[in-house]
């Protein structure tokens, strides 16, 4: 058996454990995954997928989530200002008390996404379960959505691409962003970043259904002191933060 196969096995094991909702660290429950939907069933507005990111558990040196995203989605660039970054680590330093934080920022999957409002062709759209996506079949590459996004979450593909992940088509002249790993969610898996953060044992990212009051994420959002980036714009993002 090749090395890859072995490590695959190992990972299947751990993923399966995560999916089954086992705890890998005391107090960190990983019961946060979507149920796999039958392939022929449409995403439903009963769900609203979201993330809760706890900056207390996230350290400045770690960017496992970023690496995982790039690897899973076969985004191979990230070397300059023209390269796509679907997720990035932002390091913060408070101007008042000098306290520093570190947290990942990606598409915030707003309930009222400005990118969807401004897109002339309707290529930017929100799926029933709250995931904001770009339909690259009808994206004309005007970049108006990038102008509109308050989070700088979107990237424009500046050069021809090859060797895409068959499940993650992407190409020159169109705009792209975090998809919340829609193809993984549809299979009942966690987004790659969340998965990696858990594998790492940090558990700083919690994925779940904000619409389901019994889900861990909904409970924590209801009871704990969570924030939204640019809450003043009232976009009601699906990604929430804690600890900043």
């Amino acid at each position, binding site marked *: 058996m090749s090395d890859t196969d072995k490590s695959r096995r190992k990972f299947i094991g751990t993923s399966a454990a995560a999916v089954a909702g086992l705890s890998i660290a005391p107090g960190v429950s990983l019961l946060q995954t979507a149920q796999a939907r039958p392939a022929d069933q449409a995403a439903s507005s009963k769900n609203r997928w979201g993330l809760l990111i706890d900056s207390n558990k996230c350290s400045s040196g770690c960017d496992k989530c970023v690496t995982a995203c790039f690897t899973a989605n076969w985004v191979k660039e*990230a070397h*300059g*200002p*023209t*390269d*796509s*970054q679907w997720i*990035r*680590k*932002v*390091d*913060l*330093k*408070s*101007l*008042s008390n000098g306290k520093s*934080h570190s947290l990942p*920022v990606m598409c915030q999957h707003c309930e009222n996404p*400005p990118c*969807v*409002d*401004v*897109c*002339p*062709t*309707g*290529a930017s759209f929100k799926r029933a379960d709250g995931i904001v996506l770009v339909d690259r079949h*009808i*994206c*004309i*590459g*005007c*970049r*108006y959505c*990038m*102008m*509109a*996004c*308050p*989070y*700088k979450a*979107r*990237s*424009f*593909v*500046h*050069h*021809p691409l090859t060797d895409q992940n068959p499940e993650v088509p992407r190409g*020159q*002249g*169109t*705009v792209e962003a975090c998809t919340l790993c829609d193809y993984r969610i549809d299979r009942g898996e966690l987004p790659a970043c969340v998965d990696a953060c858990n594998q790492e044992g940090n558990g700083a990212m919690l994925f779940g259904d904000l619409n389901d009051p019994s889900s861990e994420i909904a409970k924590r959002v209801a009871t704990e002191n969570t924030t939204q*980036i*640019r809450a003043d*714009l009232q976009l009601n993002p699906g990604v929430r933060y804690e600890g*900043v």
Partner: protein
Amino acid sequence: MKSLVYREIPGRSAGFYALLGGLGLFILAGLTAAYMMDKYGHIITGMNDQVVWGLPHVFAVFLIVAASGALNVASVGTVFSKTIYQPLGRLSALLAMALLAGGLTVLMLDLGRPDRVIIAMTHYNFRSVFAWNVFLYSGFFAFTAIYLWTMMERRMGAYKKSAGVVAFVWRLILTTGTGSIFGFLVARELYDSALLAPMFIAFSFSYGLAIFVLVLMAAYGWTGRPLGDLILQRLRKLLGVLVAASLYFVIVYHLTNTYFAAHRGVEAFILLHGGIYTALFWVGQVFVGSLLPLAIIFHPRLSKSRSMIAFASILVIAGGLAQMYVTIIGGQAYHLVLFPGYQEASSFFDGVNHHYTPSVAEFFLGLGGVAITCAITVVGMKVLRFLPESLDDQAVDPHAAAKS
């Protein structure tokens, strides 16, 4: 007014063909640039994931804004019944359409997928300001064409006024729409202002008129047709008023922006320490584009000189391009604040102001749009009767000419 005869420009001289040839070269260069951008991607431009709209948009928005302003001369004649401007109406409408065509071409060729531009018509998101603009632009072409028809076809003369009113109202909406492209971007602090749309209307008036004056002087100068002082001085004064109005809006806009605490950062960036953007604002937009032309236009002696009037118009255009650069690129160069009260740093340039250096390809694409505008105007004047044979004082306004 009866004596007014419109005639095509002869367009047989070597100079005419040299002009067309030169324009053709620029158009070719622009198309080549667009082809390269399509082939290699936007990597060959200076644009990036932070500054997503660059020099092509500066040119395109300038031309589009100027387009609606260029129609103004016709509107003043027809809608506001200022007879002295009426002989200029045809040229005004032609120029408006040519400018819009040039601007839209640039905008379209800059798309990431220019081959899919048809999708902008077949898939339509009614909530998008951009999509409204697609509609506004096609309407502008249609209404201006109808207006032009009523001006050129004697039998349609009766409808001239109503066509003129419709075109005038439409152009106001169009510029509001263009301004709103930016005005709706609430996330970007420089654009988050209700004043943006009216300010764009004021800009459009002065840029459009400046271009009109230049084209008029060139057309009459090069064809040797008489162009009287009477009309030119009227246009000069009008230009002065419009430039002053634009400046007024700029002042009010920045004052109100400074008033809002949340916008002070970006204001300080543009006005004080934004490097190239600050320089372009003060030197380009304010001094070269407003104060200097105003000084020339209202100077008792300089304002009599034709070359000075032409120079002032050129200054207004240069200032307009500087203004677009500051508005479009300066507005993006200033970083977005995600976490107020924190200093941000990331691999994606959070918390730092963004860099943009335009590339040759973009520059030629923009110039290509200008060349398309000029070429349409020149060819238009050759094939149809846009220009009166004479615009000397006698032809323009016999009474006033007799008095002076």
